[in-house]
């Protein structure tokens, strides 16, 4: 209840400071436009914006869903199969050091001009933090509790479902929260590889036409979209890891 109140308070305070400083210090719109100017600009492209928002949201969700599932699976694999961790984790780490943006053409050649290429990039950015957090969460399991379960003759599977997974859940949720914003970033970058619709396309246009107000508009809209996803994850988290909250 009061969390929501605080959240709104935080946003309102930020908005007030923003608007006040723009007017007080006469900041040029090139550096920081007024919120009202941003709102007006948004109203003038509302249809395109809505279309882009929907498209980007879908890409993000698909990429996030696949990234989360695969990330969790690999986190689990790494925890139980040492060889897999030793062999694959380094490759995963290497993969994360590659700026995809340098390989737009390759992405298009491999995955085509469809929504797939955005989903793939957003997947690629999501799975790593999720895998790492999952692994860390699973490793944080109390050895004595594992021993207890083993003394009951628990199979690896039972041990995993009844003990390891619940123990790791808080850490996994942290990974997912990091992942969702990366997933959104991935969708946007993906749209920079020759797409026609999406917040990323609009952002790119605005960047290169130096439409500062539009850039800010898109920053706010993407931020809002991400915040909604983040909120949804937090909600799920509160449902799933209730015991960790107090």
């Amino acid at each position: 209840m009061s969390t929501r109140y605080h959240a709104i308070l935080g946003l309102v305070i930020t908005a007030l400071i923003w608007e006040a400083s723009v007017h007080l210090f006469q900041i040029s719109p090139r550096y920081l436009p007024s919120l009202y100017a941003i709102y007006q600009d948004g109203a003038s492209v509302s249809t395109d914006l809505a279309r882009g928002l929907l498209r980007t949201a879908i890409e993000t969700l698909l990429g996030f869903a696949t990234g989360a599932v695969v990330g969790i699976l690999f986190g689990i694999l790494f925890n139980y199969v040492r060889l897999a961790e030793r062999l694959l984790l380094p490759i995963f780490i290497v993969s994360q050091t590659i700026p995809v943006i340098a390989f737009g053409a390759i992405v298009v050649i491999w995955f085509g001009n469809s929504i797939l290429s955005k989903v793939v990039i957003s997947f690629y950015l999501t799975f790593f933090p999720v895998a790492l957090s999952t692994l860390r969460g699973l490793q944080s399991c109390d050895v004595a509790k594992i021993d207890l379960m083993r003394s009951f003759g628990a199979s690896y599977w039972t041990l995993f479902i009844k003990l390891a997974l619940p123990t790791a859940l808080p850490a996994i949720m942290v990974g997912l929260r990091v992942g969702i914003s990366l997933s959104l970033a991935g969708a946007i970058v993906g749209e920079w590889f020759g797409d026609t619709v999406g917040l990323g396309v609009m952002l790119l246009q605005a960047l290169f036409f130096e439409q500062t107000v539009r850039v800010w508009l898109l920053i706010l809209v993407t931020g809002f979209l991400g915040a909604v996803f983040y909120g949804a994850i937090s909600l799920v988290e509160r449902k799933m890891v209730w015991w960790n909250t107090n």
Partner: protein
Amino acid sequence: MATIHKLHQPDERGQTPSLLTLEGVWKRFKGKGSETVAVKDLNLTISQGEFVTLIGPSGCGKSTLFNIIAGLTSPDDDGVVTLNGKAQRGDDLLGKVSFMPQRDLLFAWRTVLDNAALALEVEGVRKSEARKRAQALFPEFGLDGFQDKYPHELSGGMRQRVALMRTFLFERDLILLDEPFGALDALTRMMMQKWLLDIWMRHKRTVLFITHDIDEAIFLGDKVVVMTARPGTVKSVETISLPRPRDTDIVTTPEFMDIKRRLLASVEEESMKTFNVAGAT
């Protein structure tokens, strides 16, 4: 109750067969630089249906011994652990003994009822059935009404009782209990003791029971094993021939007093070794 194993009949020659034997068992913990010998050349035989209590100074290796018997810690290679006549290697012992660790180890995300039912669930009993069976024990353990609470809402003694329930629901021939009544008040403790004896007598399960309370050790045990100070090994085994069923009043009998005095002296001698300043204060 398909899971109760019926292995406790005397064998053909009419002798009680030995259920568990440990021969020359060692356990050394390696730290950086130093080595701690927790269990040293330990020999112990527990017969089918026996109630054995174990006492010894703090840190002498009792919990380590329990972990070995439960199959959780593998002993060093020099000794042999035999269950039902079969030598046990590696993980063989897992799932064969019912084990209550010294810490309660309740799962924060499970209600009290589900924590109690955990071992049953692991065994593959259907969840609803597991709950029903756990549910039945709640009044006896003085926990009725707490089924739906979470562990953090319980007192220390209540948590211990939940852990105890969990162990009892996992029905095995050999039960290992590591200070199960440590955090219970006098009466609750007494009720639990009686309850345990009752279970043991009716089902003739074998019990190995760690305690610090010498009264408790004598009151419950067929024999009391005294361990030496670390490195822990068996110092002496006292057979308790007090008649059963035993009543609470038995603690005031001269026989009881006699045994108690002897054991006390034995444990004190060992405990003394732990302290550098012998006879401090």
